[in-house]
């Protein structure tokens, strides 16, 4: 069944696929994970702060975003971001924004909702005595968070955060619908041009599988390594 396979198509496309496509995908994944974690941590802190209206705002945001399909959110942002940019700059027309930047904003804000739930679980998993001990030592709220709570929460949740990043890595393939030049997007375009979609999609599936599989095995090893035996 592989007799009329054209491996040359894949070999010819390799530089473009990886240097352009995979770089786009990885850059988007890592930056969105970074911003998503930062925003998510802020959201989690807001949610647990107990200062009206911060928990309500954060809770509504997280629940709202988590009930929408990522694709719909992608369409929303690619429609809205130029208008928001117009409002900010005060230009007479919606401003076209670099698609990578728009995708990065979309994924960061979307993933923030998921990362915030992970961070919330991480913070809540700590014994209450930790916070109390911090206050008893005379530390302020920011100090307690920065020096006691968040470092432990990050450590405990690191495997889950990384697993979510692998999910994010796979989800970035959805920018295909905007025909951006991510890994899948480029493979699709080359496959369509050469009439070799079968080879290209199989290759894409293989590469995604190898990367995600290797990453999830690494996370599993890390989990064993970082687990705190209580």
């Amino acid at each position, binding site marked *: 069944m592989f007799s009329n396979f054209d491996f040359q198509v894949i070999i010819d496309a390799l530089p473009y696929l990886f240097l352009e496509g995979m770089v786009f995908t990885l850059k988007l994944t890592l930056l969105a994970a970074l911003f998503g974690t930062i925003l998510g941590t802020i959201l989690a802190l807001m949610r647990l702060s107990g200062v009206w209206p911060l928990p309500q705002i954060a809770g509504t945001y997280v629940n709202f975003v988590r009930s929408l399909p990522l694709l719909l959110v992608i*369409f929303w942002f690619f*429609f809205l971001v130029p208008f928001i940019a117009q409002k900010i700059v005060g230009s007479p027309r919606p401003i076209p924004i670099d698609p990578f930047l728009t995708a990065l904003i979309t994924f960061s804000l979307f993933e923030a909702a998921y990362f915030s739930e992970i961070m919330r679980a991480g913070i809540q998993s700590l014994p209450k005595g930790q916070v109390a001990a911090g206050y008893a030592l005379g530390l302020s709220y920011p100090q307690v968070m920065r020096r006691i709570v968040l470092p432990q929460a990050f450590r405990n949740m690191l495997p889950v955060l990384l697993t979510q990043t692998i999910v994010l890595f796979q989800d970035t*393939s959805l920018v295909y619908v905007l025909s951006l030049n991510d890994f*899948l997007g480029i493979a699709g375009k080359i496959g369509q041009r050469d009439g070799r979609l*079968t080879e290209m*999609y199989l290759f894409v*599936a293989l590469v*995604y599988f190898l990367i995600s599989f290797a990453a999830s095995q690494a996370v599993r090893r890390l989990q064993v390594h970082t687990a705190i035996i209580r």
Partner: protein
Amino acid sequence: MDKVVDWFSIFWQESAEGTGTYAYTLLLGLQLTLEISVIAAVVAFVMGSIVGVCRTLPSPLARRLSGGYVEFFRNIPLLVQLFLWYFVLPELLPRDIGMWLKQVPYSNFYTAAFGLGLFTSARVAVQLSAAITSMPRGQKLAATALGLTTRQSYTSVLLPMAYRIVFPPLTSELLNLIKNSSVALTIGVAELTQSARNMDSYTFQTFQAFTAATLIYLALNILVTMVMRRIEHGVAVPGMLVAK
């Protein structure tokens, strides 16, 4: 007031597709979203149960096969999986079967429903096997001591308990599944998200179209959550934590 009426008026306009109003277009989209979700949920539940049980069986072969199944479906993006089933599979099969497969009516709908079901089944399998292994070892031992065969100990001791434990995580998998059904639009199924895009491309009322889709997804999410909470309270194991 006039402004509000004006804002909504687009939904009552005849759609350019000639099938009714734009509100009707969105409802047709919702119907497809629901149909895909129901088929996918059944596939995910059945396959997830089989594979999930295999992951906990003593047989090394069953474990290895089910492990491979889970890794395959978990480590390839859903979108790429749908492309594999829709574009690649018919090319790899013998010519006649491939040709037949391409001509099945609504093949993109079925591809989306079954593809999504298989994708989700790997997640269900993981949850179910985790539930089975989380149970006290004594359950399995007691079943064996009573003289039950492996099959009997699963059907009358382990699984009835495991399904009750696994219910809350399965609820969130169901919600994910409904959201993921939007990926069907990439192989040309006009489900809810796509029908909002269609409405947008005919009317340029992007804001209204996307707002409507957003509200429908929200309502669907709340409805499913409420129903599942109800059932959850009924099936929860006494003495175990239940969400309020």
